[in-house]
């Protein structure tokens, strides 16, 4: 049995979709451009969408995903047959060129880290592929290319737009735990993210995934040395602990406070001093963390885990219901 479904209407198609151009009997759409029965082209034919070359590869921009503080962010594809999907950041504000470069270099270095758990946690970081210029006529601007991360296509801000009253507290717990685990690794590897805002938390609503993007202001950090942020995200100035907004000095404590602030917002709280509808003991831990009481991600994670067990019982599967997403089969 072979099953293939039309990308346009969902009707079953004939087999050989990866090899030859096939037309759907129901809606008439084709699986690839070209004449019916012809081989699927080795490269994606030019349909007028922007393209550029970098490090010997050509990429096509498929569409706009989001606007970041410095860049416009697109989904793209390496233009080979079955070429990989990518995220492309095109610098919008030229003055932020240093931040785009910093993000790329910081992530490249983190991927080579030998800190404990590196082989697991490095897979949760954005995977840099290329950094270079995109030229069109006289216009030249910096672009960076990263691997596409399956399922991580909505930020916490976007998820919360579907949940104006906040997410269930069990969901808040898994989001925060994933963030703390990742931050525990990056801190051990000597890097502070420095901008853990709801716009920089990407959520996998089905698989209990939460990862960080927006590493442009990440900074090296080590015990006894002060690390300073190059820039603050203007849309989230109140999300930074007040000492950071004033003096710009950051440490793991900063990341943990900002992660806890994300969790408070996710739980439906309207202020970082109030835990809103979250269970009180869990909520108090978050409020203390949001004030900067913790500097060890794993210690905070353990506290969250403990209070969650009291409030909710053992961990369970709690996907976030979002349009288009189905829970895992059998869950």
């Amino acid at each position, binding site marked *: 049995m072979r099953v293939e479904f039309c990308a346009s209407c969902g009707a079953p198609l004939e087999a*050989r979709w990866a090899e030859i151009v096939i037309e759907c009997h129901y809606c008439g759409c084709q699986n690839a451009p070209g004449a019916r029965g012809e081989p699927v082209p080795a490269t994606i034919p030019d349909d007028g969408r922007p393209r550029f070359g970098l490090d010997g590869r050509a990429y096509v921009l*498929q569409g706009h995903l989001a606007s970041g503080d410095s860049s416009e962010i697109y989904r793209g594809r390496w233009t080979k047959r079955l070429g990989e999907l990518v995220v492309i950041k095109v610098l*919008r504000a030229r003055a932020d060129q240093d931040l785009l470069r910093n993000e790329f270099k910081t992530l490249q270095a983190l991927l080579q880290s030998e800190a404990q758990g590196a*082989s697991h946690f490095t897979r949760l970081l954005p995977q840099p592929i290329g950094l270079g210029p995109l030229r069109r006529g006289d216009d030249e601007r910096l672009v960076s290319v990263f691997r596409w991360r399956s399922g991580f296509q909505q930020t916490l801000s976007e998820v919360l737009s579907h949940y104006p009253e906040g997410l269930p507290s069990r969901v808040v717990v898994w989001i925060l735990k994933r963030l703390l685990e990742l931050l525990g690794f990056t801190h051990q590897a000597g890097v502070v993210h420095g901008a853990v805002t709801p716009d920089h938390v990407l959520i996998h609503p089905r698989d209990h995934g939460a990862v960080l993007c927006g590493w442009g202001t990440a900074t090296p950090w080590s015990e006894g040395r002060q690390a300073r942020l190059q820039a603050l995200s203007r849309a989230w100035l109140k999300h930074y602990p007040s000492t950071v907004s004033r003096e710009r000095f950051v440490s793991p404590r900063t990341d943990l406070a900002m992660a806890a602030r994300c969790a408070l917002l996710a739980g439906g709280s309207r202020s970082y001093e109030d835990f809103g509808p979250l269970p009180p003991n869990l909520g108090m831990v978050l409020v203390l963390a949001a004030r900067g009481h913790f500097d060890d991600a794993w210690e905070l994670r353990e506290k969250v885990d403990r209070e969650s067990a009291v409030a909710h019982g053992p961990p369970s599967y709690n996907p976030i219901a979002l349009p288009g997403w189905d829970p895992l*089969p059998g869950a």
Partner: protein
Amino acid sequence: MGYGNYSHDAHVAMTSKRQTVNTSEVFTQRTCHELMRPMNVGKRECRDSEAHPNSVGVVFALDVSGSMGEIPSRLATHTLPAFMKAMLDSGVADPQVMFMGVGHAVSDSAPLQVGQFESTESLMDQWLTWMYLEGGGSGGNESYELAMYFAARHTVMDCFEKRGRRGYLFITGDEPPNPVVSAAQVKNLMGDDLEKDIPLADMIEEVQRTFEPFYLIPDAARGQKFAWLWRKLLGDRVIVMEGPDDTSYVSAGLVALLEGAVPDLAALVTRLREAGVSEHQSAAVARALTPFAATLERDGTPPPTLGSATLPEGEGQSGHDR
């Protein structure tokens, strides 16, 4: 080559008998088997037959160095029947499997060993266990590019010639790629005259005309070291597994996804669970396959909402306070 019927039960019986036996008792070759030498072999053929009218060529190029010998060993003692069963369960009725052994072209005595395409369990098993697990594995990268060269230039497959469908090439390894296919090594090992070395990127282009190539890395620790180097060449065709035992299921899953035998990853996991694969292993296989399934847009996630791909112009505003 490639006549006969595949029998899962017989194959399980054959491999399970070996599970308590040492690797050296299963792989008894102490030098390259005469029939596996690649010198002047012409073409390895993967042909249709009455019993197998829709043959699909599957080549396993297995790194047989010390750090990677575990995969051929586990295939011979545990997991090859699982691969064949998963293929049949996925609707690929007539797979024909050829094994190659890959070592180091400079330091090994048998850097490339090649079997034949087979569809019966005993013959598949014979070629697999005739492989010489030379060990070694220090002082340079294994010669994976020679396996690509052999697959591209020394195989002929009815799946491609008659039906325009590519075969599958699974290379297992844990070393960075070599930059070129060396003309001197090709001459030494296979007897072919090449005018000059072939850049690896060109070799990969060539092998993709007839095969769907994949590079399988056995675990995340080795993936962290080498996957990025291979990804530059192969993109998401580099699969980082969570353990060498997943090789069979991961390979069969790739074939099933590309053949359209399963609509997406979730359906593949359901198939694996129904076939008795543990929840833990099914999930590990799904995780390893997720990036490539995303490339196929078969990862079971909704397509992202995309706006127009219009590029920014002029001097755009920064959202940062300096």
